[in-house]
């Protein structure tokens, strides 16, 4: 990443800055009786790539779900561009430019590739524009355009999922386990695409178990353990402690 972006990320926040694109303050959340987040503080500044790392069960998925309005919060505050948006619905959040590519396959398995892309127009882009951008970036999707998304390989499905982010020009992109169950080559292709989006000025929060695939493109990394942010630092700082965090030394 360019040093400009890194400076912006780690430098002190002056009183007159552009407000963070996305901000979670003391967020708590639960699935039924199971409280998963115990007060999460997280900030994504414009143009920044924040990696949310940590072993499974730490609360990464829940954090991004809350950030996208998919899961109601039990406490704390969620802000988009400085505005408090607690209780926002996922569809409204999507309309405001918050794009979450969820964990697993973020595609409608029983819809064709074209139909999947068509639904991405829900946030305003035209159908032609979306198809054009998606096929340009992932030519394989054009060959598969009339195939059911569920019948494609995991990598192709993830390309399709990521196409929504490519085509709809969101303000902030939330990625959950982009690399889950994918071959390393596909994963690096995915992250190339993400890097390209970052070039275009999109802010990214990426929850990722495979720390080392994402650290190279991150400006800032946070480690989540037991529903809390356990550490925040530059990728280099976090990288040094990874083994301990994951495998328990």
């Amino acid at each position, binding site marked *: 990443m360019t040093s400009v972006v890194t400076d912006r990320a780690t430098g002190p926040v002056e009183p007159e800055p552009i407000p963070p694109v996305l901000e979670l303050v003391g967020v708590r959340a639960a699935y039924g009786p199971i409280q998963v987040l115990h007060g999460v503080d997280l900030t994504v500044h414009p143009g920044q790539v924040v990696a949310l790392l940590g072993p499974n069960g730490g609360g990464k998925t829940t954090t991004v779900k809350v950030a996208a309005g998919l899961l109601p919060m039990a406490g704390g505050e969620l802000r988009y561009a400085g*505005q408090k948006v607690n209780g926002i619905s996922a569809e409204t959040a999507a309309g405001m430019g918050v794009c*979450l590519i969820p964990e697993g396959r973020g595609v409608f*398995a*029983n819809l064709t590739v074209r139909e999947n892309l068509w*639904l991405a127009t829900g946030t305003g882009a035209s159908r032609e524009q979306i198809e054009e951008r998606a096929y340009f970036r992932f030519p394989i999707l054009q060959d598969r355009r009339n195939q059911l998304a569920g019948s494609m390989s995991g990598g192709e499905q993830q390309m399709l999922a990521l196409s929504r982010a490519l085509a709809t020009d969101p303000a902030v992109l939330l990625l959950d386990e982009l690399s889950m169950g994918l071959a390393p080559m596909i994963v690096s292709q995915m992250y190339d695409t993400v890097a390209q989006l970052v070039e*275009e*000025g999109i802010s990214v929060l990426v929850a990722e178990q495979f720390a080392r695939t994402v650290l190279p493109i991150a400006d800032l990394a946070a480690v989540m353990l037991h529903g809390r942010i356990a550490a925040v630092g530059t990728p280099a700082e976090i990288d040094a402690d990874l083994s301990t965090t994951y495998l328990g030394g």
Partner: protein
Amino acid sequence: MDLFLTYTLVGLVMGAVYAIAASGLVLTYTTSGVFNFAHGAQAMLSAFLYWQLSVGWGLPVPVAFVLVVLVFGPLTGVLLHKTLMHGLRDVAEVTKVVVTVAVLLGMVSLSQWIWNPTEARSVAMLWGNSTSFELLGVRIRYHELLCLVAAAALAIGLRLLFTRSRVGVTMRAVVDDPDLLRLNGYNPDRVAMASWAVGASLAALAGVLVTPVAGGSLEANTLTLLVIDTFAAAMFGRLRSIPRTFVGALFLGLASTYLLGYAPTDWDWIGNVKTALPMIVLFLVLLVLPQDRLRGAQQRTRERTRVPSVRFAAGWAVAFVAIMFVITKIANPLMLGPWTAALAFSIIALSLVPLTGYAGEINLVPLSFGAIAVIVAYHTGVSGTGLDATLAWKGLLIGTVAAALVGGLVALPALRLRGLYLALATMAFGGLVSTLVLSEVTPRDWPIWGENTIFPAAVIAMPHLDAGPLDLDDEATFLMALAVLFAVLGVALVALRNSGYGRRLAAMKDSPAAAAMLGQSLVRLKLSVFMLSAAIAGLGCILMASAVGSVAPDNFLIVASLALVMLTVVGGVSYVSGALFGGFMVGMGFSLINGTFGNLEAGSDMYAGLFGSLSHVFAIAIALTGIGVNRNPSGIVNDICESYRPLRNARPVLYVGVAAGLVLLGLNWVEVIGDWSFAIGIFCVVVLLPVLGRIWMPERVLTESELAEHRSRAAVVPPELRALDGPLDPEERYDLDTYLGLPARALPALDETPSDLEATRV
């Protein structure tokens, strides 16, 4: 050959109508997760409205057609979704079923209010019954052609909708993954609403088309139960696939026509079999459907229950018997009839407590199982004639066992599947009983049984049980016997819930996956509880028949069963008291209220219309209570009990209640007020006492948080005045800014952020 073609045409037309109705049902079910039992009722209302517009008011047929199918249909769909179905996400299957059943009952009441059911109405085919042309020697009427064309157009139209329109694609997407759809910026509720609109207009279309095809006379119940034929067709596609539903519908249409056409002429029963064919096919389809996969996907629902202890139940049982004893002493002897009927219905309603309350499974037609018990008891246990006739214990026992066995047989095919399938199977069984069993009113030569009649002359006179020294012919004695039986059964059911068996039922209801993982065979457990339930329903129905004196097929109507089930759920199906509520509403409420309004209507010329309307309003109000289950899925009785819990700390309030009750009792005793006023008075006291408690002694009744809310509500400060007491915190400042419509802080809009950045980078 001509004959074959004619049969084929008629079959295809029937199948086409089924297909239109069934595809609407499948559409709403898959996109909203609510199975609409009122689908047939919507068709019925539309058919009546169409009759009113075209025949009653003489509007041109095309205008009436468009108004009903394209205006009324979608409007009811949207209205239903907005007011009810939309709130049915986090409730148990039982609640979903009961809400749509309540809509069904409400629509039936509404239609009977507006269109007096004793008047005959008929709907002619569009373009008249005789406009036709000939093709290959078959006379095809334009209406029939329209049915075929409409179904074909629908098949193509739905295909286009689902693949070529964004709305249609979102409908498929919401089935796949509603959350992902939200992330794409769509509201799944909107999608569900669209599908309810389409589904309802398909119901309307089917309603308008079906009546002339099926004979021409307009009848509310028959049309309402069209939903059974419809879901039989939908079962071919596992309630999901619309193409397979079409195939199922055409199969049913053709099969029933060929069956009727090619059966030997001396099979006079074949007409009934034809009517019952969809239900028979439904059971066959259930047998071949693959088993549902167990998955650990526990969902929290809003229903809450409290398990009473056996001691607590026994205490109430004694009190209940004592109250009933007092009633036999003070009530007008002529009024004992409704009381016994109400108790008998309460016993039938008890059958739902273990099945639905404890195990979470649904039987929509307890009265149909009861009908089997009544018939068997009549044929095996009644001896003597006229006033000397008695029912032997043997008959009571065999009848009860028969209901249990039939129950097991009916439930078995559906038990491997989700709860909804069991509900559908029971409703289909209700249809079977109506068309095949209750219609057997003339003698027939049976294979083993010989020359006999199942339901002789459409009336079964059920004498009282021969109970040795106890003279059950005496109304008061019979009433007390029923009261004791109800109390004993009630305590037994509470004891059952507190036993290992009851815990296993609760475990299965809460998490089938975990129960199976601990070694519980789910099918066996469900089967046992269903048989128990059917047995109780059978016993209750025999007693009901004997309380009423004689029963006709009309006593076992599916709609009556549905009302009983609904009212029991409204009362609280996990509690014995809920069964009491349901039983009394059905056994006493209906007859008393209709009787009272009927008398008033007859007695006063001036207000006849008013009183007539009031009884209809009441019928609809009852349906509305069922719809209210959505708001309060744990039941009314549970609610009342909960509201009394805090009163333990406010004894004076309770004393006032008891005093008021005694005063009313005294006034009734000296005949200052009638039984009716007494009942209404008691009801008011029961309902108002907790309210009195909250007003009179809030500090003893309300909880800490409620008290705090109480106080803060008393002292609401408008936001613009808040700063007078002290500085605003950021949250208040934000609220105030929003309230005053000021820009909270000078912030760039979110959407502009990236482009701004791009600019700075360049």
